């Protein structure tokens, strides 16, 4: 971080630097991020505040966002870009997906030049309104990546009425897009109304975004809840978001993370139903059957996929996912005999 400060000062003074200024890699790259991994919580970290970086992974958010946009003063953009680049090379964010929110284009393209070579997992594109904006980012990312051995995903942030109207097309504008998200402060401002506690002014936009995301086969991620001290309000917001179809939301303080994880955890009933479906699926796999059935009902593949996701979410939330009652029709002997079958590859089809 000190190196980043020195480099910023040198660049501001117009001093030529020998080498590219990048510090040596401080940690191995974490595993590549899967297209449909858990994205319940993503913690915003101002890009020019490195003191927050080193502990961010300890709070076990599903993602951290190194922010170059709104949380960074315009005079500090250059410093933040270097700090974020260095952080991607040196800081261990543990299991969190490493995201960067770039600035609006065209400055955002310069941000990409600095950070994409450091292989962030995901780029958030602010104030997205058009397909062209996404394609411009996609093209620059592709240009910057020497190889596509690990994906760099995109998550457009829709923050205007126009962006919401284009949600479906935006979601399909690039194969790199894995989620849509919404920025409610700017959206309310665009509508010309204040934000309300119950979010009535944004309900249409949130529902529309969820529908567009699902139609395009990507995740729908909710906005942040800015009242850091109101954990009950946060829980309520998260639970209602989950009911709408969101799979996660942003957060601005670590204390929000466990509450969000609880809010987006499946209920006991959901888990039990998912367990029954997964058990039926595993039984069908073990028996070489192409059709999965639960009792007399046929189970479609998307339902199986969703059940697997529910079990994963429950496991991630630390909930008990052990099957403690035998699936009807399967003897205990059968369950013991059947080796655990491979699960469907949930990164299948993920490109690049």
């Amino acid at each position, binding site marked *: 971080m000190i190196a980043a400060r020195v480099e910023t000062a040198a660049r501001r003074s117009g001093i030529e630097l020998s080498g590219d200024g990048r510090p040596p890699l*401080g940690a191995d790259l974490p595993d590549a991020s899967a297209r449909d991994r858990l994205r319940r919580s993503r913690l915003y970290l101002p890009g020019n505040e490195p003191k927050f970086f080193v*502990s961010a992974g*300890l*709070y076990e958010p599903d993602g951290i966002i190194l922010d170059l946009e709104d949380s960074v003063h315009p005079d500090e953009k250059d410093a933040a870009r270097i700090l974020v680049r260095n952080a991607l090379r040196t800081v261990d964010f543990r299991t969190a997906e490493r995201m960067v929110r770039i600035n609006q284009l065209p400055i955002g393209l310069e941000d990409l030049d600095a950070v994409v070579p450091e292989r962030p997992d995901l780029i958030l594109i602010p104030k997205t309104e058009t397909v062209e904006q996404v394609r411009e980012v996609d093209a620059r990312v592709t240009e910057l990546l020497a190889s596509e051995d690990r994906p760099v995903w995109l998550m457009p942030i829709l923050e205007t009425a126009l962006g919401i109207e284009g949600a479906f097309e935006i979601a399909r504008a690039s194969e790199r897009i894995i989620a849509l998200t919404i920025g409610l402060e700017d959206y309310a401002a665009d509508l010309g109304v204040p934000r309300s506690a119950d979010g009535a002014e944004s309900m249409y936009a949130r529902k529309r975004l969820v529908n567009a995301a699902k139609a395009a086969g990507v995740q729908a991620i909710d906005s942040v809840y800015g009242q850091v001290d109101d954990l009950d309000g946060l829980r309520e917001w998260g639970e209602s978001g989950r009911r709408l179809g969101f799979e996660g939301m942003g957060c601005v*303080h*670590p*204390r929000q993370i466990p509450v969000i994880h609880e809010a987006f955890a499946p209920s006991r009933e959901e888990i039990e139903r998912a367990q029954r479906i997964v058990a039926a699926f595993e039984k069908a796999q073990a028996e070489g059957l192409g059709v999965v059935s639960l009792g007399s009902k046929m189970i479609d593949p998307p339902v199986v996929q969703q059940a697997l996701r529910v079990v994963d979410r429950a496991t991630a939330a*630390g909930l008990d996912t052990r099957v403690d009652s035998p699936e009807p029709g399967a003897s205990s002997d059968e369950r013991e005999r059947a080796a655990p079958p491979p699960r469907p590859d949930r990164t299948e089809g993920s490109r690049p």
Partner: protein
Amino acid sequence: MSRHGDLVDNGVGRRVPVEVNGLPQTPFQGVGAYSPRGVKASPPIRSCRDFPADGDKRVGSLEEAFERCGLRDGMVISTHHHLRNGDFVALLALRAAAKLGVKDLMWFPSASFPCHEPVIELMEQGVVHHIEGSMNGPLGDYCSQGRMRGLGVLRSHGGRWQAIQDGEVHIDIAVIAAPTADPFGNADGSHGPSACGSLGFALADSMYAEHVIAVTDNLVPFPCTPWQLQGNNVDHVVEADSIGDPSLIVSGTTQVTRSPERQMIARNVAKLLRDAGIMRDGFSFQAGAGGIALAFVGYLADMMREAGVAASFVRGGSTRYLVELLEEGLTGYILDGQTFDLEGVRSIAKNPRHIATSPFTSYNYHGKGNFASMVDAVVLGATEVDVSFNGNVVTHSDGRLLHGIGGWQNCLASRCTILAVPSFRDRIPVVVDEVTTITGPGELIDVVATERGIAINPRRQDLLDALQGSDLPIRSIDEIRDEVERICGGKPAKPRLTDEPVAAIKWVDGTVIDTVFRVDS
């Protein structure tokens, strides 16, 4: 050989002086290894015939009281820190002594605070020769620079009592700040405009000093009740306009940490007590008034409610968080050494289950037992801890003496001692290879809880076994040290120190466990 005599290696391999301020010393030999023999010190015989029969011991000023006590050069004057950073009485006393023209006093405070910085001037003028007592802030800095004529001596609260009983420190005149007192000298800390709670730190002085002066800004007619200190030990009573600044004596409210790292440490420590089975009906614990400790109490209270268990007693420093436990029935008693906030003061004044204690009941090595070893778990802080689990609370990594020991050493006797510390501060590692100053030996420190993991002392296999299956981030202390060094850019630089001792660190039994050396400026 230094200005202060020879140094020898002690039982934890630290160089310690064989003589301190003219008195021979015993190097630390190991926990429980030293068994002093002999007879305790005692105050001179006094008779009621020499004191006013009507019980009115008031005199007009501190100067007059000092003159009646026969104050002269080289005497030992003690004061106490129950008014904390709001205390006026120590400076009133030492300045009164200066007016009388005496020199070379030894000031024996139970602790000093930044408000006592003007004592530096009195040392420069020769009024005060040196300080034996915990030195916080500017006085610690002054001592670190080797500017004090004598050696500083740092003792724990219990160690102070032990030193008085051993006769190592003979108090000539104790000047006791009394938030409420009567003309006979009965004194109480829980009432009055400068109320602070317990007066326990002054109890030994009231019993063992040659002379005792009570200074009060709230004189009440006899009898002052409750009498935390008995007027039968008091020579003179002096009225002052004010003995302290109430806003600095107790906090309006003590604050739980808002740092997410520290909250995580606090939550994990509470979980450790729960998961290890320490938190059970009838257990006991102690936590101080630091941000992590307060947050710990909140998390533990939630877990106690959930499990339906209550503590038999908790040990203070009391705060509103402990008071809430008491009033909710989550603990049977608060045994309170000092009172940190207004809620604590309110509670100790009216709740018969909120008991004022003293270093004698809680910590004294020369008692027939004490409360500290009866506590199931204690949560403490530290400036440094090393991979051998030794703890430091008195110096910083730059070698400067900046904090007192307080009851920290005494609390290590608990059944489970937990140091709850961030793994680094301002990019300076807290978990290190070797602490700058050993204040507590590693064999007494069972757990080091940081935001980057919890290390259990390998000596405590029972704890490790009890925590099998817990999802707490238990790691070796070496792993935590390695991670911290990676983050902070390598091992911390060693402080630049000279061979000149500036202070001796006493262990609870009176032996010398380590030395603070002058910082090379």
